[in-house]
């Protein structure tokens, strides 16, 4: 693999960049792999990457029905934070956030992690108490967060209206090392690194069945033929229930549309990420200048990757209330992704009833920020059968009633 650098660009410029090689190789599937990951989104690619990097397992294929990074990895609002309340969540999201800090260098691919800081606004007394609790928990979990007052909020984000009238800002939970990253680049960077380790990333390859023998997984049937494997990781987000059914088990997952939208680009006016859960909306400004906006999920299940207008209306209304100046910006485009939501809105990283088959899903509305930590933990689970990062996220928790519920701290969206 040719390393990327300013010098490499200068060198290639001489030849009008006709010398650059493919970012990831295009290969036909082999007959058999040590491990197969279904789903070349961020989580699937990161899982493959850490299988190779941390556990030396490189005879790996990542199978993708469409184009890599084309699901929720390429559709989210790119917010990264780890100010979660419950221990297991704080552990995996903080692992992810800390891996993001050096991900560009690790992958030799600029994923543009930008720790510009995340404020979660408190606009009711209930939220104030919730975030103060989170701040206490975070201090003990090794997550650097801070409760700040309304003046500091205004200072960090001058375009915000903190005075109401309907919901004055009472303060916020501030995570200075939270921020954003370039979502596509995360998928592409991992894909390139995986390919460089000799892994096969096979796009346009739909899995149509899972084969097993004596309760143990033996491979998958695909649109490109049967492929054998010793272990299988299912990492397919909104389509998890569908693939799990092929592997013979059911999941406590519902798939719903989550929407986002962007404005036309404007000159920089907002340095931080702001999440306002009372009014239901969050916003940041991309490096391109677009205001990137998200809100709650649609209230009904679907798979169409488009949502209703009504949620856009509610979200925009909430954000105009918070940032009056955006009233005169224009919505450039809206889109939707299908998120897989569990009963406690926390993910599943788990062994399954089928031996050798593992599942990583249920990230719901908050998966992007977790990608490196999710891959790190899931690779360890697949390689060793146990990971402290994923231990609490087993699917048996729904049978045991051992939920990891973040709703008290995260409100509608996380």
């Amino acid at each position, binding site marked *: 693999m040719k390393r*990327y*650098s300013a010098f490499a*660009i200068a060198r290639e*410029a001489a030849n*009008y*960049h*006709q010398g*650059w090689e*493919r*970012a990831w*190789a295009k290969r036909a599937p082999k007959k058999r792999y040590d491990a197969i990951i279904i789903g070349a989104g961020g989580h699937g690619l990161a899982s493959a990457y850490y299988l190779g990097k941390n556990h030396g397992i490189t005879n790996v294929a990542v199978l993708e029905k*469409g*184009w890599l990074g084309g699901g929720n990895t390429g559709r989210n609002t790119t917010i990264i934070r780890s100010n979660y309340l419950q*221990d297991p969540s704080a552990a995996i999201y903080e692992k992810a956030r800390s891996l993001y800090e050096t991900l*560009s*260098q690790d992958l*030799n*691919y*600029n994923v*543009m992690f930008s720790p510009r800081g995340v404020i979660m606004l408190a606009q009711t*007394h*209930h939220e104030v108490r*919730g975030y103060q609790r989170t701040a*206490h928990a975070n201090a003990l979990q*090794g997550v650097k967060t*801070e409760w700040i007052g309304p003046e500091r909020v205004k200072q960090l984000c001058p375009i915000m*209206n903190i005075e109401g*009238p*309907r919901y004055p800002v009472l303060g916020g939970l501030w995570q200075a090392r939270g921020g954003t990253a370039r979502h*596509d*680049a995360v998928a592409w960077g991992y894909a390139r690194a995986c390919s460089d380790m000799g892994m096969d990333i096979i796009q346009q390859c739909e899995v149509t069945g899972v084969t097993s023998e004596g309760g143990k997984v033996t491979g998958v049937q695909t649109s490109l033929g049967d492929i054998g494997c010793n272990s299988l990781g299912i990492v397919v987000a909104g389509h998890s229930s569908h693939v799990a059914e092929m592997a013979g088990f059911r999941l406590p997952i519902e798939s719903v549309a989550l929407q986002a939208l962007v404005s*036309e*680009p*404007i*000159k*920089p006016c907002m340095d931080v990420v702001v999440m306002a859960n009372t009014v239901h909306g969050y916003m940041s400004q991309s490096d*391109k*200048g677009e205001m990137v906006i998200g809100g709650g999920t649609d209230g009904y299940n679907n798979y169409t990757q*488009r949502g209703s*207008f009504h949620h856009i*209306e509610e979200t*925009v*209304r909430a954000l*105009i209330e918070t940032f*009056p*100046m*955006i*009233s*005169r*910006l224009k*919505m*450039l485009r*809206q889109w939707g992704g299908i998120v897989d939501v569990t009963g406690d809105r926390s993910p599943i990283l788990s062994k399954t009833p089928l031996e050798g088959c593992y599942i990583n899903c249920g990230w719901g509305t908050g998966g992007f920020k977790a990608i490196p930590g999710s891959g790190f933990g899931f690779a360890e689970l697949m390689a060793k059968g146990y990971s*402290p990062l994923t*231990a609490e996220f087993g699917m048996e*928790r729904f*049978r*045991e*009633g051992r939920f990891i519920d973040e709703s*008290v701290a995260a409100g509608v969206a996380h």
Partner: protein
Amino acid sequence: MSFRLPSGGRLIDRTSELKFTFNGRIMRGFAGDTLASALLARDQMLMGRSFKYHRPRGVVASGAEEPNALMNIGEGGRFEPNQRATTAELFDGMAARSQNHWPSLEFDVGAINAKFARFLPAGFYYKTFLYPRHFWKYVFEPIIRQSAGLGAAPKEADADTYEHFYAFCDVLVVGGGIAGLMAARDAAADGKRVIVLEQNGHWGGRAPVDGAVVEGKPADEWVSVTLQALEANDNVTLRDRCMGAGVYDHGYVLGYERITDHAPANDVPRHRLWRIRAGHVVTATGALERPLSFAGNDLPGVMLASAVRDYVVNHAVAPGKRTVVVTNNDDAYRTAEVMVNAGLSVPAIIDARPSVDEALISKFSDLGVEVKVASAIAKVKGKDRVTGVAICAQDSNGSVSTTIECDAVAMSGGWSPVVHLWSHCGGKLTWDEDQAMFRPDPNRPPTNQTGEGFVSVVGWANGEIDQGDIAPVWIMPQGASIETRNKMWLDFQNDVKVSDVQLAAQEGFESVEHAKRYTTLGMATDQGKLSNINGLAVLADALDTGIPQVGTTTFRPPYTPISMGAIAGEARGEIFQPLRRTPMHAWHEKNGAHWEPVGHWRRPYCFQQPGESVEDAVNREITNTRTSLGLLDASTLGKIVVKGPDAGKFLDMLYTNMMSNLKPGKCRYGLMCSENGFLMDDGVVARIDEDTWLCHTTTGGADRIHAWMEDWLQCEWWDWKVWTLNLTEQFAQVAVVGPNARTMLETLGGMDLSAQALPFMGWADGKIGDFNVRVYRISFSGELSYEISVPASEGLAFWEALMEAGEPFGITPYGTEALHVMRAEKGFIMIGDETDGTVIPQDLGLNWALSKKKEDFLGNRAHSRSHMADPTRWKLVGLETVDGSVLPDGAYAVADGHNENGQRNMIGRVTSTYYSPTLDRGIAMGLVLHGPDRMGEVLAFPRVDGTVAYARIVSPVFYDPEGEKQNV
């Protein structure tokens, strides 16, 4: 140079001159001008700078697809960035500024980027800025952010208002051109209710510009006659300046009407969002012309052929004195004809097609225009403006045969139907090889709730385009070198070139979505209207596959950007969300209420007296209530009537307690759990009569619990005979609390309120003074307490009567904080404090409320799950700081050591913490590992600042543990 022609201009009114400013310079135009046409008339071809290289940019189109001529328009609260000069209708006093340059449009420091363009190919930023690590955040990114963005950020709140209209129709026609008007006429003739939307301020689309004849009449005349007939029909609604913005599931369509953008006014909304439910949608949205890709095609002065024609015919503005036309189809010849007829020079038509109809060639030869067949533009000459074109053979590598001087180039790469609205909700496209375009596939329309197609397409939008034989020419010349391809622009705003798309393909970004995201092709504010098809064709060629195999990116709403203000509509500021007020709200406001938002309500947190702090007020309210008398407005508590033969059975399922055996006249405190066993709400239930119960809920829970009841009744137990009604707002409720409560009420006269007549946990209807009341003997404070409910209309009068009668007792109204402290002193739990969605009744010592007599209730099964029955669940205790201070809210108790993930081991947390004026010390409730078994033990609660608070585990009931005060 560009200039105004001495005569003509079908849309302008030369008698009405308008003054406007551009970059501070005063200019004049005519009514009917767009900002773009008015600027062109003043030889202002340079209108902006591109996004990445800050290249000089002139206007290229005449409509919504314009990527270059974007302006900051307006001032103060009416400032808005990124407005298309081509669709901004000129008005007197318009203040426009160009964007994305510093210090000026003519001299832009950012243009230095263009010098380094060779080092800045598609996706260069993924390959560099990697070291040193912190430079990304502190150096590279700030520079990139500053040079990116387009228009300026608005600084002030919006001075305008917006509104939503809701409409229903049988047929919605989007597009008021000939095809759209015909469709509307046909539907109206069938007796259908019809709405027609036209995005421009004028009807008829392209036909009048192109001199079309419709049903024997000139287009303008036909349009005017047809509009008159439609206007006369009561079933037809016509809206101009109203764009079809998006098509959603089940025939839901958004129309975006711009009411005052062309004529600012204070007394009407600026934009109106039409929310239309249509039985059928007809899109007559026309087509957009494509540019051609040749070196230097981005220079100011290179424009779409149709746009050149529009400016000449509609506004009498000529983009240049000598205009070279370059094309791969017949349509651009119309432009040449229009120019010649207007007395302008067209030195040549460069036609890339290998052969052209002889009749066409000779017709133009007669007009003095040379047609160069099988030819291409090798390069546009000029620096900030076109000065000429170098010509070569299309089928060559670009060796120049001749050079033609000119000051404008009119290009046409053929037409693409506007298929956006067809595609928004899943309509599929088919590639028409002959016409080189994607058109709607009539066999795969977007489908409605019954599986039938609900959108159809007519006219040019359907691919019925009059462009002659088109040659699929995607780059010019065919064999152009990499140096040349590096100068061919696809996306003018984002600076994406042919070489960039080819680089994406070379690096494996083969999916059209990958190529788009890697190069940013089609992600500019025109959303690829101008450039996408050309980009797809280049990508297909690079991948050695067909255009239909590459496919298109997804078409997303809106068709063109719509204002956030219009999306939000009227609901902003005070009416952002409805504010719910109790009947006593105004009294509270007048009497020092310090408000707290609770759901959509405002409740008084406390009532401050002059000179008093919030804390002092709370303490005074508590002490006064405990020692004499207090009054709480409890109207916001949910009041849901549950009635019917099966109501008892239903409530037994809903509550963990038994409610069916409650006697009429009695009250019972009940708990509700979710199916997962978690405590979700609590409140007092009163049995009114044999088949009627009244369920009190928490303030925040009223609507949720009502919906929860209906969910079960409608989805699961739909055959149970139970009806529910949320009466929360029908009754005002006042808690009269304190040792003097009974004495005070008795001074008003009326019903017997003695302990014998109305014992604790009983209720009765009767009269107090002149008021018809229902009185509940319940207490959330631990004091003698009557919760009295009156019709909402009498709430204020009743409250005032109580205040008056209470005066001799020193009555005080109290707020939510006093309520909270008093319940905590009594060890009563509060939903949302002691519960957070993860707590079960057993954690709170509420096992007594879980009925053992019932077969089942919601949550019962969940409570038997292993983790729910786990003895290590944290349990409710009271907490007292060792030094009497108040424990920090939300603090955690720690044990020694760390868990596997390096987090401190935690063994409990504070759920409520207050200063108790009654005990004059801090009191708290908390959930602690093995808590009830550890009475007297001292726990450490680290504060966020690193210091530690120490608290002793005690009983959660701090005040009157025997309950003597409430039951008297």
